[in-house]
């Protein structure tokens, strides 16, 4: 009798994991097709505008994935990830312009600086529960805006900093066409996707999710809560700062608002929020949709002479997701797939 019950249940479990396996395989094939399509874009007869828009999307996906690690998996609502983006961009840019250090090396200094700032921020706020961490990230962002405005000699002040242009150059990591950046950003997106996947399936990822779900229960299960939160923040900060290297090389300029401003920080959150928090696919889907819509609306906006419609579109999309798909697009699709599979 009991054997029959467990056998029945076993079959149920097997069928649901089978459908999950199928979904995973389908996602992998879709991902592979998307990857090949994007990688072959420069070979197709498309103009540089479309290539550049694709690079913009890929960069935002990378940055969104980095934020997803700390906020989606770890549940730490960082409202100031622009700090790490800005530190990465400014450090790389200043070291290049002032000291001639190529970005290949400069960016690592940016990563180390970001890690230090993340460590100080985390050590001060992550022992406390609740909103202190989120507030601290906002405070640091606002401080960084002022600091970057103040040191005009180094940062160019409110006007920002523009990289010295060397044309097509390997050592300066610069290019007149967007194609090299397309490959670089595609590598970033792929690598960050695998990092997120790896974290989600690792013991560390399980710890982060436990802390996200319930800190008190996590501690009672033996999880070192504070250490887990700090580590999650450090990983995310390093990923953000590293992707910032790509950002500055592609955009060739950075200013205080674009680096540390709150609207930038919000843009970093949108791919994961729209696509699905805490999933490896979420930021990819969310970021792609976001940039696609913003390009279309900006193009339409300039036709009729209105600018800044993209911000409005972001807002509406976020509202729609919160109302109709609170787990994001991927989260909602995944849930329905699993439910359908079990039946």
């Amino acid at each position: 009798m009991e054997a029959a019950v467990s056998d029945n249940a076993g079959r149920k479990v097997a069928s649901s994991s089978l459908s999950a396996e199928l979904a995973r395989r389908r996602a992998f094939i879709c991902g592979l097709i998307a990857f090949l399509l994007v990688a072959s874009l420069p070979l197709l007869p498309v103009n540089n505008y479309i290539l550049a828009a694709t690079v913009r999307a890929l960069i935002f996906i990378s940055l969104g994935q980095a934020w997803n690690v700390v906020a989606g998996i770890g549940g730490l609502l960082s409202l100031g990830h622009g700090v790490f983006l800005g530190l990465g961009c400014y450090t790389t840019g200043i070291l290049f312009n002032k000291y001639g250090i190529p970005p290949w090396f400069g960016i690592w200094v940016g990563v180390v600086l970001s890690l230090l700032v993340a460590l100080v921020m985390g050590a001060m706020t992550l022992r406390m529960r609740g909103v202190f961490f989120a507030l601290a990230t906002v405070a640091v962002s606002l401080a960084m805006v002022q600091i970057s405005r103040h040191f005009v000699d180094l940062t160019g002040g409110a006007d920002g900093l523009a990289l010295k242009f060397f044309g097509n150059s390997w050592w300066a990591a610069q290019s007149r066409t967007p194609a090299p950046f397309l490959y670089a950003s595609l590598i970033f997106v792929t690598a960050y996707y695998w990092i997120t996947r790896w974290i989600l399936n690792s013991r560390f990822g399980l710890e982060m999710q436990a802390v996200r779900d319930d800190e008190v229960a996590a501690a009672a299960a033996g999880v070192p809560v504070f250490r887990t939160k700090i580590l999650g923040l450090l990983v995310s900060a390093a990923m953000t700062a590293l992707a910032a290297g790509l950002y500055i090389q592609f955009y060739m300029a950075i200013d205080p608002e674009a680096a540390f401003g709150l609207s930038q920080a919000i843009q970093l959150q949108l791919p994961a929020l729209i696509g699905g928090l805490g999933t490896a696919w979420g930021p990819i889907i969310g970021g792609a949709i976001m940039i696609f819509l913003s390009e279309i609306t900006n193009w339409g906006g300039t036709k009729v002479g209105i600018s800044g419609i993209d911000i409005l579109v972001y807002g509406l999309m976020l509202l729609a997701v919160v109302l109709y798909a609170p787990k994001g697009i991927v989260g909602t699709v995944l849930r329905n797939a699993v439910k359908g599979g079990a039946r």
Partner: protein
Amino acid sequence: MNAPVPALEVRGIARNFGGVVALRDVSFSVREGEVMGLIGPNGAGKSTLFEIVSGNIRPTSGRVSYFGRDCTTMATHLRRRAGMCRTFQKVRLFESMTVRQNISVAASQCLPKGRDVQTEVTTILAQLRLEAQADRRPSELTLADRKRVEIGRAIAGYCRLLMLDESLSGLTHDEAEHLIEEILALNRARGITVIVVEHVLSVLAAMVKRLVVLHNATVVADGTPTEIAHDPVVIEAYLGTKQKTLR
């Protein structure tokens, strides 16, 4: 002659919240392998004492020893890794994870080196009859099963002392009896010392050989269930007529 080291020893614990005295001079000890009940009416200080022993609240004074080792200021997750395990009054599971993952979290943290996490998780799922639920999420389970998962997570890896905070409340009579049997089985099979906190005396009488009664922030009785049931102080504490008129 040396008495064996108690599994848990609480000495002179006091805790104030502002001007409110939640506990004063609470002392008792629990032998290894014992199943002990801690009871008291609402507001007696059970929860505060529970949180002090499990590490979420620091006492104002006094000390807590675990197998002879002072652990009064030890971090919660280190206590757990040392085998001090607990459940929560209101079940707290990792809602985004499956039952198996819930138990894996604790097993991967607390299992002694060289032992396999998956084997441990499978053993616990079997022991608590949760195999069929292993790949479900907590929100799909009945309250009784949720409590089972919490106990599973509490003992996974390494457990010498299990503290259950009103694990039986909210269950039907049958469910409670089943859970009691399972807890006693764990006590026998794994040699786990158990402390059960409840506010209803009758539930515990069948389960434990010893009861400690907490009332008005301190221990008022300590003995077998039969002794406790006839103790005039305890009867007064629960019926409370004299106490209330005195106030």
